């Protein structure tokens, strides 16, 4: 557990040190949100379209982020980490870091959408919860698939090809929950969807944890 925490801190400091990447991601989010605003002629999209656009922006931001997820771990570096921390700690640290990162991306996107298109959401708590659960699910899938892609000699497009079909179930569930939040279903009546999304997150997280060591054997 201590190792995991050190690794998470290390990933964060790596990210802060590499600030041009952070800026390019921020620029992407602002740029795309503004592009939608511009093309839409400044009018406010219908609720369902608003939700769809939000997830498309988050989706590509997350894919862009994950394509670099294992970038700094060229083989030597990785073996170094593996020997001192072990694969279990590494995957948990990666999952925590990516989940936090994608949650921030989706939060920022929500903020940008509020600025440009207003906030159609009625139940903000539920919407935030849906963003959190969806981001965690996406990060699990993206972490595993970018690990897979990294093992095929860092083919970044392959990571996206592998991840997109696997992300769709999570995004569909999440956006169903988001739509409920938009129309204002009370949080305690959405337990069915929250529960299944949460269970899915935990299930695939566990699966990623179990499968990850096999990826890195040589």
């Amino acid at each position, binding site marked *: 557990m201590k190792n995991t925490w050190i690794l998470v801190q290390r990933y964060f400091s790596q990210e802060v040190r590499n600030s041009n990447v952070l800026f390019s991601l921020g620029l992407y989010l602002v740029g795309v949100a503004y592009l939608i605003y511009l093309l839409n002629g400044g009018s406010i999209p219908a609720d369902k379209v608003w939700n769809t656009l939000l997830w498309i922006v988050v989706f590509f931001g997350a894919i862009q982020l994950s394509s670099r997820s294992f970038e700094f771990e060229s083989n030597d570096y990785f073996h170094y980490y593996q020997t001192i921390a072990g694969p279990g700690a590494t995957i948990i640290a990666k999952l925590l870091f990516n989940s936090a990162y994608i949650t921030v991306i989706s939060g920022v996107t929500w903020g940008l959408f509020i600025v440009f298109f207003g906030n159609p959401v009625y139940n903000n708590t539920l919407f935030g919860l849906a963003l959190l659960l969806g981001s965690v699910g996406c990060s699990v*899938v993206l972490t*595993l*698939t970018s690990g*897979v892609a990294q*093992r*095929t000699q860092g*083919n970044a497009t*392959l990571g996206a*090809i*592998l991840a*997109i*079909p*696997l992300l*769709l*179930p999570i995004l*569909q*569930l999440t956006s*169903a929950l988001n739509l409920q939040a938009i129309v204002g279903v009370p949080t305690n009546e959405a337990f*069915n*969807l929250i529960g*299944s999304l949460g269970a*899915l997150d935990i*299930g*695939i997280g566990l*699966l*990623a944890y179990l*499968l990850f060591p*096999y*990826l890195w*054997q*040589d």
Partner: protein
Amino acid sequence: MKGLPYKIAGLLLILFSLTYGLWSEVPDLPIIEQSIRNLFYHVSMWFAMVAMMAASFGNAIGFLSSEDMARDRRSISLAETGMFFSVLGLLTGMLWAKFTWGAWWTNDPKLNGTAITMLIYLAYFVLRNSIDDPRKRARISGVYNIFAFVMMIVFIGILPRMTDSLHPGNGGNPGFNSYDLDNRLRLVFYPAVLGWILVGTWIASLRYRLRTLEE
């Protein structure tokens, strides 16, 4: 010839479902009418596909725990056969949809599930082709296979139950349950499922042997 009994049994069962399926008596229902016979040919494809994918998943787990390359060859052969069944299931389903729902493609959770299943397994084939070292390919694609199968089950098995569907037995649709209980349909449907699973196993075993010879 190895496994002759199961191959012959599979062929006979399919032959039975193809012929008797066309002249057996079926329930007479509005809209669906005689196309209800497609139950024997369309739904059995999905049963066969899920069986093949499940066997592929089992072999992927087997490979990861035993490092036996034969397991990996079985896993990919079974996945290819499953893909073949899903293409057939999609085509028969599209025909059926055109005649009963009036469109080749509808926004139905089961159709989306199928499309995504096919994308997932196509990505799996792309992944396999992009790694040269056989042992590494087996391990990495095994990991993806296991993960993909679980997501597929979530998508085709769990999500459709939570939303409305045009398909019988889900959502607000009165459903096949009333015809499902019809023994005249069962008499042909179950043999068809079993027959296609047996023949699918046969196809996969041929692909497996071809692979073994190539290596």
